[in-house]
Structures are given as structure tokens and as C-alpha cells.
């Protein structure tokens, strides 16, 4: 596990690489995380860093929350997010320390998780890629799911059958996406390809689980 930072999806565009390829990119503004609390083995049963993101007015938080922030000596935060980290990283940071987007560098691979855009109640064509039937030439089969199973045996619909239903609005992780560029101004990172969620949505960024960064190899 590694440090998780929150960010805001700004939007997409495309950039030219050094080679001259034109790649689609997503621009994310990364929030700096302040260590609000350290969960310890003795007290909490496991070790983790609790990070707070985005300052808010003190009157916006409840009294118990206020006490939590005051104990740490940090200003009130809008979001709290735990990061399960390795022992050495855990010891590296103290309460009150600020972790910035520096932990990610150009060329690193990251996983970006967010809640995807809700599509509402979607049919089989949109939700599962069913091909549907033809629209014209007397066709009476358009976008319906079609047969959902046999009759007497098994006399039921098999579990897990792909049918219409709620689509989107789930937590999705885009894995192993490359950081094309990082700029300090505004804590911006530019990643290759798309990222779940709407523009302005909150995303979680962490080092890629399945792909080592070029610098770490």
C-alpha cells in the first residue's frame, strides 16, 4: 500500500509527447494532505496515516471533529482519508506534516479511483454492450435483452445474468496510468488517458499497484 492523495479532476485535453505523438490526457489538481492522526498498532490494531485535505471554516465542522483537528494542531479539513503505508513511510511522517504531490513524479504509474458518472437505469445495450437488433426492414427486435434462459430446465434465471439496471455511480479504479507531466504551480499532474468521474469530481491517487514506475525499477 502507499500514500493516497485526493485530487480534483479538471478535465481532458491532448498533448504532444517528446517523440511527437499526440496523446489524450487528463489534468488533475492534487490536494496536499496533512497528517491529522497516526493510527498505531497498540491503539488501533494497525498502522496508517490519516490525511486531511482541503481547508474549511472551523464553524463547518462538528465539535468532536474540531477536537480531533485541534489535537493535531491543524486547521479543519473537508476530507479525511486513511493511507495504509509501510513501516518506514509510517515513521517518516509526523502529525502536522504536509504531503504534497511531490510523491508522484513524471513517468510514474498511478492508480486513480473515483466514483464514475451515474448513468441511471440503463438497458443491456448501453450497460453490457449487447448488440441489439436492426432498426428497420421489418425488424421487431431493437434494444431488448432477448432470451434470458431456457424453460423447464433450469426453470429460473441464472445468477449474474447481464440484464438492464443501474449503471455507473460506482467506485472505479483506473489502473497503471502514466504521469506525463507534473507541475508545481497549482499542484497539477497530467496523466495519460481517462480517469473515472465527472469534471470537478474528487479522485484518489496512489502509486500503481501492478506496475512499477520507471524510477523505482
Amino acid at each position: 500500500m502507499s500514500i493516497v492523495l485526493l485530487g480534483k479532476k479538471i478535465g481532458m485535453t491532448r498533448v504532444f509527447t517528446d517523440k511527437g505523438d499526440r496523446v489524450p490526457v487528463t489534468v488533475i489538481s492534487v490536494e496536499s494532505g496533512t497528517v491529522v492522526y497516526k493510527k498505531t498498532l497498540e491503539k488501533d490494531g494497525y498502522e496508517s496515516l490519516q490525511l486531511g485535505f482541503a481547508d474549511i471554516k472551523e464553524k463547518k465542522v462538528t465539535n468532536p471533529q474540531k477536537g480531533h483537528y485541534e489535537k493535531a494542531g491543524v486547521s479543519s479539513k473537508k476530507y479525511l482519508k486513511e493511507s495504509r503505508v509501510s513501516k518506514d513511510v509510517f515513521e517518516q511522517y509526523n502529525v502536522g506534516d504536509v504531503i504534497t504531490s511531490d510523491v508522484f513524479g513524471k513517468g510514474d504509474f498511478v492508480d486513480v479511483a473515483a466514483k464514475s458518472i451515474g448513468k441511471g437505469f440503463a438497458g443491456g445495450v448501453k450497460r453490457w454492450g449487447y448488440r441489439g437488433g436492426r432498426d428497420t426492414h421489418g425488424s421487431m427486435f431493437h434494444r431488448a435483452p432477448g432470451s434470458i434462459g431456457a424453460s423447464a430446465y433450469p426453470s429460473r434465471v441464472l445468477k449474474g445474468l447481464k440484464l438492464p439496471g443501474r449503471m455507473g455511480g460506482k467506485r472505479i479504479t483506473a489502473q497503471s496510468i502514466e504521469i506525463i507531466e507534473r507541475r508545481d504551480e497549482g499542484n497539477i499532474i497530467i496523466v495519460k488517458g481517462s480517469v473515472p468521474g465527472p469534471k470537478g469530481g474528487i479522485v484518489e491517487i496512489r502509486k500503481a499497484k501492478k506496475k512499477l514506475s520507471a524510477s523505482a525499477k
Partner: protein
Amino acid sequence: MDIIAKIEQEQCKAEIPDFNVGDTVRVHTKIIEGERERIQIFTGTVIARSGKKANETVTVRRVVYGEGVERVFPLHSPRVETIEVVRRGKVRRAKLYYLKEKVGKRARVKEMKQ
């Protein structure tokens, strides 16, 4: 939104040569073959310009051995070295897609008189 605009602005070349639809141009493109890098020139008529700012592209058409060839170049790509204008054309359309259906003498564009 302005961050995106700024990033796109940075992608743009400082200057792109002045040319219009209907002009005959020579597009110099960088080709990387293994280690070597060379310049390839594609000559033809500009039949369309589309997109804005960093995403602007130009479609160039020519007829090679009786076969029409069209190439789309992103104007701000670092692979596009320069674009020379060979001849100014006089056209009344923004897109010259009608040229695709014409052959021989009909597939010409009048020259702009100075």
C-alpha cells in the same frame, strides 16, 4: 478551465505559416527511422483546415499515379517541421471535399491573382 487552456496554449507553436484552403503546399515532416531522422516532403492541395489552437489539423490531398492520397497533419505537431506555400489558390469553399470526386483537369484549383 483556464488550466486546460493554458496547457493547450503551451502545445501551440509560436508561429504557423499563413496559408489557406486551396493553396498548394509542401509539408516537411520529420520521420524517425530507428536512429536516423530525415525530412519527408508531402506536396498537395489543402482541402480542409479544422480544429482550433493546438488541435488544428490540415488535410492535404494529391494524386499519385492516378490514386488520390490524403494526409491529415496536426499543425502544431513537433513532427511537422514547416509548411511552404507553393501556390495560392482561389476558392469559394472552406472545405474542398468536392475535389475527391473530380479527376484530371476538373480536379484543379484556380490560382489567386495578386
